């Protein structure tokens, strides 16, 4: 892993230095993120996940430490910072609150427009981004304020995807969506990742969301990165996660307890469908199916 797309070097951020409200939001984070990876980011509320994400695309300048995109320090040249934001696309929490244009089409085009792309290219990008985000084409000419909550969310995500970033960061994209919407959006993100093979960082409170999609998981606690390991390895440390107020996916817990009772399941099952396949195979072998 010699050429990570994103690398941070002892990144720290202190808010309100020297006032009684001083708070260390991020502490000494050094991580490497490789090209084409899907990273799940977990941590309880206020653990510094969102702040860290905003430092990765240069929106927040760290108090100390550096961020390297493709080997280059993003704060080395002020003029290129805007360019960094096109390459590291960040979808904020509740992104539907940032829609502003008269039509969905123009709102999605805001990013590509700022990149200075020609009109035809923008139109193409808007269409493909809307498709990736699962937004019906007939909605493109409606006002974003007339859409439903889930559609707004998709429109806002499409607005970032339209910039075709090398790294896509999604900060709790499924928060407040219904179960169907959640699953739908996640599979859409997965499909997008697979077709573009770009890097995706997904912040989520739902271990199930992360388990189904992530290659590696980054665990934050009190501003520090406490783990960055493969999804299997992270979720095999149930006790450690519980200590910092997190848990492992329900299905991982159930299967590991079944294992302890002697059911021959494999270790570190992360999704319901994996468990389903294994249990069916066992039942078949035993002739009970």
């Amino acid at each position, binding site marked *: 892993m010699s050429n990570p797309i994103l690398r941070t070097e002892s990144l720290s951020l202190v808010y309100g230095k020297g006032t009684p409200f001083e708070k260390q939001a991020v502490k000494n984070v050094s991580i490497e993120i490789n090209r084409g990876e899907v990273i799940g980011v977990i941590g309880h509320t206020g653990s510094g996940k969102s702040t860290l994400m905003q430092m990765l695309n240069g929106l927040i300048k760290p108090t100390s430490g550096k961020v390297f995109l493709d080997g280059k320090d993003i704060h080395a040249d002020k003029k290129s910072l805007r360019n960094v934001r096109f390459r590291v696309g960040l979808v904020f929490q509740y992104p539907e609150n*940032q829609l*502003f244009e008269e039509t969905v089409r123009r709102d999605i085009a*805001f990013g590509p427009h700022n990149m200075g792309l020609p009109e035809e290219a923008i139109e193409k990008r808007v269409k493909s981004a809307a498709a990736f985000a699962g937004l019906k084409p007939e909605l493109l000419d409606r006002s974003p304020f007339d859409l439903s909550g889930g559609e707004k969310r998709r429109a806002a995500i499409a607005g970032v995807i339209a910039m075709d970033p090398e790294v896509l960061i999604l900060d709790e994209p499924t928060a407040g969506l219904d179960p169907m919407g959640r699953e739908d959006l996640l599979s859409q993100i997965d499909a997008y990742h697979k077709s573009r093979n770009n890097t995706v960082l997904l912040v989520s409170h739902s271990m199930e969301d992360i388990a189904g999609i992530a290659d590696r998981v980054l665990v934050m606690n009190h501003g520090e990165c406490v783990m960055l390991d493969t999804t299997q390895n992270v979720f095999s440390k149930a006790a450690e996660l519980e200590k910092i107020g997190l848990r492992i996916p329900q299905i991982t817990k159930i299967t590991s307890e079944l294992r302890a009772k002697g059911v021959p399941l494999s270790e570190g099952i992360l999704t319901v469908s994996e468990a389903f396949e294994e249990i069916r195979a066992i039942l078949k072998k035993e002739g009970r199916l």
Partner: protein
Amino acid sequence: MMRDITLGQYYPSNGVLHRLDPRIKVLLLIGVIVLIFCTFNFYALGVVALLVAASVILSKVPVKLYLKSMKAIILVILITSLLNLFYGTGEPIFQWWIFKVTADGIKNSIYVAVRIISLVMVSSSLTFTTSPTDLTDALERLMKPLSVLKIKTHEIAMMMTIALRFVPTLLEETDKIMSAQKARGADMESGNLIRRIKALIPVLVPLFVSAFRRAYELAMAMECRCYQGGEGRTRMKQLHMSARDFVALGVLLVAVAGVVLCNIFL
């Protein structure tokens, strides 16, 4: 960035001024302001300056913060005292072209400078030591006599409280929306005035939308809890006067007496 702006600049600490009844503090502030403008010689001015210095020290807020609040108006002080310097009457000490400086002018400019500095210092000592909610509480109680004139004092105070409460929220929201648009490449720092104003549209539209949404939600939440204005409403936090409030009033009275005596006899 936006986070650095603290509204009402309340500075939590445990000084004597923090523990005073906010009503008394507002009255004291009014008293001191009147006093500042009733000083007619240097001795009287000295008494007021002493009082202001005492309030700064008693507030237990770092003097650095006071100086910071002075920074914004340092230009105003300079200009007004400079103008006063040339508007004196009497024998000129120094003259050049149409500018002449008299003893009277020097005296006036010192007066003005000390008065403005005292004014800012003493007002800051109120806002540093009183949280915005305490402040509106105090104002509501002090405005109570106006309800005789059918002025809805409770509603005014409630509006002030809500406005103050939502300033940080809206600032935070602005910050978030700005970040989100910047993440999409919005450029708000360069270009001429018209371009910059145009660049604000992506921030202002979502901000207004969310402000209205918040207003509706707040109104609904208040109605759900049977809020119907000030009539018959009791308060959870009653304001109480204690011995130290009377002491503070006493100090003000002594200062008033001092200023009056200085004005008359010195």
